C-alpha cells in the first residue's frame, strides 16, 4: 500500500510536471478574426463574449484572460474549478481547451475539447481581445 501510494505520488507528480512544462511552452500565434468564428462554432451556445454578458450555461468569457479561474459571480463552478488556483493565461487555455478534465479534474464543462491546434491558437487569440 505504501509502495502503491509512493508510485501514485510519483505518477501524479510526473503528470503535473508534464502539464507544467506544456503550460510553459509558447502558444502558437493565432488569428483573432478567425478565432471569432471558432468562438461562434465552439463556445457561443454556452458562453457570452460581451462585456457584462450574461451567464448562459457557462460563465461569460469576456475578460477571461488574466482572470482567476472559477471566479465569475453568478456561476456555480465545480469545486475542482473553484480550487484550480491559477489565472487564465494563453498557456493555461492552450492546456485546458483540448481536454478540459485533464487540466481541471472535476470540471463540469461537458466539452469534448478543441483538438485542432490552429483553431485553438485562433480561439485563444480571439479570447485575448475580449477585454
Amino acid at each position, binding site marked *: 500500500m505504501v509502495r502503491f501510494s509512493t508510485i501514485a505520488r510519483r505518477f501524479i507528480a510526473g503528470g503535473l510536471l508534464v502539464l507544467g512544462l506544456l503550460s510553459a511552452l509558447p502558444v502558437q500565434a493565432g488569428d483573432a478574426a478567425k478565432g471569432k468564428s471558432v468562438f461562434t462554432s465552439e463556445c457561443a*451556445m454556452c458562453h457570452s463574449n460581451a462585456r457584462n454578458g450574461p451567464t448562459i450555461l457557462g460563465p461569460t468569457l469576456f475578460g477571461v484572460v488574466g482572470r482567476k479561474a472559477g471566479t465569475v459571480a453568478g456561476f456555480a463552478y465545480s469545486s475542482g474549478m473553484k480550487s484550480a488556483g491559477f489565472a487564465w493565461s494563453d498557456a493555461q487555455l492552450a492546456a485546458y481547451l483540448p481536454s478540459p478534465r485533464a487540466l481541471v479534474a472535476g470540471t*463540469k464543462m*461537458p*466539452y469534448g475539447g478543441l483538438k485542432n491546434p490552429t483553431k485553438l491558437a485562433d480561439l485563444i487569440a480571439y479570447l485575448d481581445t475580449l477585454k
Partner: protein
Amino acid sequence: MRPKSPLMLRLLAFTAAASLGLAGAVRAQSSAVHELPQSLIYEHEQTISELEGLTHHPGAVGVEATKALDLFKRHIAHEQEYILPPLTLLPDLADGKVSQDMAWALEMTDRVRTNQEQIFAEHAAVTDRMNALYVAALQAHDAEAADFAKSAAADSLNDLEILEPTVIMIGDYLRTKLAAKP
C-alpha cells in the same frame, strides 16, 4: 432411461417449483429494476420526438439532427438501463422508508459511480453534437432547432450537476441505512 424413484420425482418436482418461483421473483425484481420516473420517460419521449421532427428540416439542420438522434437514443438507453431506475426510490426514501427490497438499486448506483468518467464523456459528446446543431440552426435562421439544441445542452448539464450525483447519493444513503437495519 431408468424410471425415477418417487422420492427423486418429489425432489425434482420441488426443484422445478422452486426454480419457477425463483424465476418469477427475479422477473418481478427485474421489472421493478427497470421502472423509471414517469416524468423522465415523458421528457425523453418529447426529446426524441422533437429531434425526429428536426431531422426533416432542410440542409445542415436536418443532417446534424439526424446525427444527434442516433447519439441521443444510445445515451437514453444507457440512462434507462442503470442511471434512472434508482430515482424511483426517491419518494419513499424522502418519506423515511427504507427496506431490503430496495437493495436492487445498489448495483446500479455503484455502476454510476464507477462509470462517472464514461458518463461525463457521453454528456460531452451530446453537448458537442448540440453545439453543431446550434451553429447549423443559427446559420439557417432556424429558431426551433437553436432552442432545442440549447435546451438539450442544458438538460445534459442538469444530468451532470444534479441527476447523476443524486443517484450516487441514493446508493450511499441506502447502503448506510440498510447496514444499520437489524
